[in-house]
């Protein structure tokens, strides 16, 4: 049976004025902040730790534990909010910033209070003009009302939240690249380990980088307590998570579901969510966690929406982005489009990624154009192996006797962007190799054509 729908972070989306201070205050807003100020910072931190709030940006690391990684006695510490949502298929942080900016601001304040962070930078993706407008307006309201700034609500807690905005670069969603960008530089990732941002981050000082959805959960956790929070979701992944389901489903949408309980099948097929595949078509494949994740198929539908089982099955839950492909989808074309994204967005710092992603795109393009060579499939896999050596994570395929290769991939690059480009290549070749071979031999493939070819180019 499908777990009941619970709205924790999207509870105000129903109101047309959800982004205003008046609506926020009328619906329990800033009560978490008020309560926290009656508690010690350690008690607030402990409450978040007890809630096992897993990071919603992709890596899924518990926020409370991350806050504890800052070295003692090194000041100041900073909070950087990652609102640079750009992973293909991901659509949740923009909604949270546009529709409930005060909920995010309250989360920032709670994190700063609990972890002793002296200044907060809220980095919003450059293209998101409305989110920037709404957050700027909300910050101005919150400052005027005494919720942000000096001596918040009359206490000795003082912190500024500075709105910052980017200018179009996917890589800046990687936390060290985000910090570089915030320092006014080209957004290229820093080498880690040994030093993670919690130890050496913004301006070389301890820095916590948290995702928008993660922070948006904090107010509710403090108001209602971690025990209440943990009644939702599974034991290891409590609470709820937002999932954007796009592509060939009847009702694409952003759904908040119980974390680790609801399954892919329920989310994709249940009438209260996506209502199945469009036009009564069959499912061909789905991307479970954004463009960077290896593809899943029919066999993986009954997995719960939880990081560990999804990782064990060969992919990742990532940033809550599910892209569904029905049987009219051309696997080579879809694979190329995802790969092209990484080729375009590679920052160029590491050679295997800079060169490899471009070559993957070039080879896939020529296969799609009908100029593929028989050696191209092996070459694609070889280029992928140079970026991400060893068996690449992949879903099991019982009919062919192929076992799952668990996540994550190995990498010869500083950040995971390069390995991400290998995911669609390995996924598509492993499962749909005959489609690649047919294109290389310039033979017809049995894909039902739905969208007409353009009449003009």
């Amino acid at each position, binding site marked *: 049976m499908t777990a009941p729908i619970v709205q924790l972070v999207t509870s105000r989306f129903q109101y047309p004025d959800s982004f205003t201070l008046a609506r926020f205050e009328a619906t329990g807003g800033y009560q978490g902040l008020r309560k926290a100020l009656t508690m010690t910072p350690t008690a607030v931190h402990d409450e978040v730790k007890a809630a096992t709030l897993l990071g919603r940006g992709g890596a899924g690391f518990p926020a409370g534990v991350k806050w504890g990684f800052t070295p003692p006695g090194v000041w100041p510490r900073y909070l950087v909010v990652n609102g640079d949502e750009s992973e293909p298929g991901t659509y949740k942080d923009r909604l949270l910033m546009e529709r409930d900016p005060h909920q995010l601001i309250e989360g920032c304040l709670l994190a700063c209070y609990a972890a*002793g962070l002296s200044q907060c930078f809220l980095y919003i993706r450059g293209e998101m003009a409305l989110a920037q407008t709404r957050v700027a307006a909300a910050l101005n309201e919150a400052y005027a009302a005494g919720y942000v700034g000096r001596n918040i609500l009359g206490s000795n807690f003082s912190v500024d939240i500075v*709105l*910052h905005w980017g200018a179009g670069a996917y890589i800046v969603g990687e936390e060290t690249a985000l910090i570089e960008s915030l320092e006014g530089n080209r957004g290229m990732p820093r080498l880690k380990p040994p030093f993670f941002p919690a130890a050496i981050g913004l301006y070389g000082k301890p820095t916590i980088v948290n995702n928008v959805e993660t922070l948006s959960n904090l107010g509710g956790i403090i108001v209602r307590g971690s025990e209440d929070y943990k009644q939702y979701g599974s034991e290891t992944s409590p609470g709820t998570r937002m999932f954007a389901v796009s592509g060939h489903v009847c009702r694409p949408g952003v759904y908040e579901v119980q974390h680790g309980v609801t399954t892919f099948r329920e989310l994709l097929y249940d009438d209260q969510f996506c209502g199945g595949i469009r036009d009564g078509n069959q499912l061909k494949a789905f991307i479970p966690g954004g463009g960077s994740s290896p593809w899943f198929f029919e066999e993986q539908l009954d997995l719960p929406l939880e990081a560990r089982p999804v990782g064990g099955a060969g992919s990742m839950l990532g940033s809550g982005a599910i892209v569904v492909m029905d049987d009219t989808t051309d696997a080579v074309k879809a694979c190329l489009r995802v790969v092209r994204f990484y080729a375009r967005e590679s920052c160029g710092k590491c050679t295997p990624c800079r060169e490899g992603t471009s070559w993957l795109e070039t080879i896939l393009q020529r296969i799609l154009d009908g100029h593929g060579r028989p050696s191209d499939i092996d070459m694609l896999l070889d280029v992928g192996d140079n970026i991400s050596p060893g068996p690449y994570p992949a879903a099991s395929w019982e009919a062919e006797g192929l076992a799952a290769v668990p996540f994550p991939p190995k990498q010869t690059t500083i950040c995971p962007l390069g390995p991400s480009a290998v995911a669609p290549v390995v996924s598509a070749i492993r499962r749909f190799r005959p489609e690649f071979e047919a294109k290389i031999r310039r033979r017809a493939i049995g894909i039902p054509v739905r969208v007409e070819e353009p009449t003009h180019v």
Partner: protein
Amino acid sequence: MSRLTPQNEAIALEIISRYPRKKSALIPLLHLAQEQDGYVSDDAMVHLAELVDVTPAEVIGTCSFYEMFKREPVGKYLVNICTNIACQLLGAEELLHHAEHALGIKAGNTTPDGLFTIEDVECIAACTEAPCLTVNYRYFYKVDETDLDVIIEDLRNGRQPSRKAAETGPDGHIPPHGTLALQRQHIPADRAAGNADPDSAPAPAWLEQP
């Protein structure tokens, strides 16, 4: 074109004041320059270099990394059509081809009358509303070829778009290229907690035991 106007220089100084290190303000300042002129001019970059105490080469180094910054004029309307996977699955490439045909230019180019620039862009976080596009970063959802024709026709005739964008200016029109947020953050002096200087900020007062 030009350096920042005195009004914009005042805004720039306010933005700079919110960061412990001046260079951190660079991306917001490049946006300010682009808002003023519609693109980022060489003179503006020299001015920004003076404002944040770096060399002009460092400014162009940062500027050239980010695809939103245009170093030459673009059309009055920047039409960004997403063709990434979620949009592609629902016909975005065909939509892009239609736009190219309708405007007589390939993606990446500007119409001779200077009205439209088309770009083939990556995921813009509206995947459940595919195919989608933005005009000067204002969203249009579930756009088909007819919708696109109407949007182009409205903009060409200086009309407010009849197919509603997610956000328009106070006059109902799409703001010019370069204008992002319609409201700026302003921290009142009497409410500011102040910057946390990386070299000298003390332990936060609220962590100390009473």
